[in-house]
């Protein structure tokens, strides 16, 4: 899937994409007050989202948070119980038919027919978009080329590796060159190299003007790809903003100290305590504390530690990661809290 090929993943930016980019002044994705229940379970409990055309919105959250349900509503697979959900200015309920021409979905499962060849899969999808066989075949070949699947074009998809299937699945989502692309945990289960490749592909698509909404459990993925991040937990958006904004929300920077001698952690913590409004956290040979402002922080810390006679291996200021953000927002870590499958 490679960004090195010359073949365009999307039709030229002056095509339908550019004219659609306006959507009558509406965002590419706009969700307000979205509620969806399954029996007693409130999978989505008043969700608001917005993505401007040509940007990436990441829904970040653990398993069962409601991310997949949100994607299913946005792609017309589920009807919302309440709220307004519009994609490219079209209502997902009232204008579903028209909307389906403008969206692509690559889900958690690779939704391909394993018994058909890669090319036949893409031709089938193209024809179901109403294309004639020849045109569908042309587009299919174009996508196989772009996703580095040309060699396997005529092999049944069941012979493909996991990474190849994922690429074919994404290619199928791009058959109609949709201005808005939904990716539900696109890199779950991929090896690091395939993951990086997929990221690059997504970046290429976005550079061409595609709006992407993706769900992920991986903070680094959201960090790298997303213009805006909505942190979802238990069916609610508990925070949203850019990656930087979210990091600022959990209290600026932390000073981290690695000590030469683990037994001196308490002494070091005592020496540094008045630099922070919160009590320092001590670990095995480490001390960390939230600090305000960068100026002279390290100099001051080193002076204090030296005075206390503590020897230091390493000292530094660290911006909070999205892990810290998640922890401070939800009180639990982002990694799968339980093995419960996404309810939808």
């Amino acid at each position, binding site marked *: 899937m490679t960004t090195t090929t010359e073949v365009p993943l999307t039709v030229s930016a002056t095509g339908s994409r550019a004219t659609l980019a306006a959507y009558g002044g509406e965002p590419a994705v706009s969700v307000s007050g979205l509620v969806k229940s*399954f029996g007693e379970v409130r999978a989505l409990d008043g969700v608001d989202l917005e993505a401007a055309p040509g940007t990436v919105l990441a829904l970040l959250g653990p398993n069962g948070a409601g991310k997949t349900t949100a994607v*299913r509503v946005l*792609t*017309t*697979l*589920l*009807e919302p119980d309440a709220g307004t959900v519009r994609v490219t200015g079209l209502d997902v309920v009232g204008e579903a*038919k*028209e909307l*389906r*021409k403008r*969206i*692509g*979905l690559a*889900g*958690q*499962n*690779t*939704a*391909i*027919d*394993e*018994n*058909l060849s890669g090319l*036949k899969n893409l031709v*089938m*999808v193209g*024809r*179901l*978009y*109403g294309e004639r066989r020849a045109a569908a075949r042309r587009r299919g070949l174009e996508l196989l080329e772009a996703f580095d699947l040309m060699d396997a074009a005529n092999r*049944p998809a069941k012979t493909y590796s996991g990474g190849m299937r994922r690429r074919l699945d994404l290619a*199928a989502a791009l058959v109609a060159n949709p201005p808005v692309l939904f990716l539900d945990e696109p890199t779950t289960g991929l090896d690091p190299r395939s993951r990086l490749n997929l990221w690059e592909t997504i970046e290429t698509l976005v550079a061409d003007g595609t709006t992407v909404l993706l769900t992920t459990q991986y903070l680094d993925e959201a960090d790298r790809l997303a213009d805006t991040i909505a942190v979802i937990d238990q069916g609610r958006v508990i925070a949203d903003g850019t990656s930087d904004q979210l990091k600022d929300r959990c209290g600026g920077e932390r000073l981290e100290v690695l000590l030469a001698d683990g037994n001196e952690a308490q002494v070091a913590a005592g020496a540094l305590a008045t630099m922070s409004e919160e009590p320092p956290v001590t670990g095995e040979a480490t001390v960390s504390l939230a600090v305000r402002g960068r100026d002279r922080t390290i100099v001051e810390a080193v002076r204090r530690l030296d005075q206390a006679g503590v020897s230091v291996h390493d000292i530094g200021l660290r911006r909070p990661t999205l892990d810290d953000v998640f922890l401070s927002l939800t009180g639990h870590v982002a990694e799968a809290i339980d093995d419960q499958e996404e309810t*939808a």
Partner: protein
Amino acid sequence: MRRLVTDTLVIAERNLERLRTAPDLLLAFTVQPVMFLLLFAFVFGGAIETPGFSYVDFLIPGIIVQNIAFGGFVTALGLNEDLSKGLIDRFRTLPMARSAVLAGRTLADVGTNLLSLLILLTTALIIGFSFDASVAEIVAGIGLMVLFGYAFSWVFALLGLLVSSPEAANSLGFIAVFPLTFISSAFVPVESMPGPIQWFAEINPFTIVVDALRALWLDAPAGNSVWAAVVWSLVILAVFAPLAVRRYRRAASR
């Protein structure tokens, strides 16, 4: 409407293509019916009294009806697989005709049913089956089988959408179809069965369809069997097609 037709054809083509690439599945439509036919004809044949007919003549319509009824099996397996693998989701996000998924699936069954019918009839003729029928009656019999098979495809479509796995579809299908075909006039004359079973066999739609095929192809006394068989097929279709469509809508929006 034009979209429905083209989309249905695209889906049907896809399902038939599957046979080409999965030859093991093709065995189910070719070797398996022939095996059944030969086993019954030569293992049980000598022991079963069929007054008025040779056993081979008696058996062929029964075997054909049983096979046609089973023919929709791939629909149950295929739909179940499509559902669990997320392919149905993809179809539902495409601007295609919604009903084309089921319509294309069941249409493909008509193709596979015709294929097994052809193979069974050829084998039957080789082992000594002889028509006692006009060309029109032979064609009418084939037409009845296509209709009956199509109706049963919808039964299997519903089954495939209801169960949790292809394996479950498999065993449930067998549990449903085996007693229905065995407690009928398909393999033995119903007169040889004990009271309550005979009663069931006589009202069993399989008996009616098998008798109708015997009436058309062997000139057996039919009574109203042929029309009753057509009506039964239409009733099965009228009941199960809407149920399958409804279930499809619900199953797909989980």
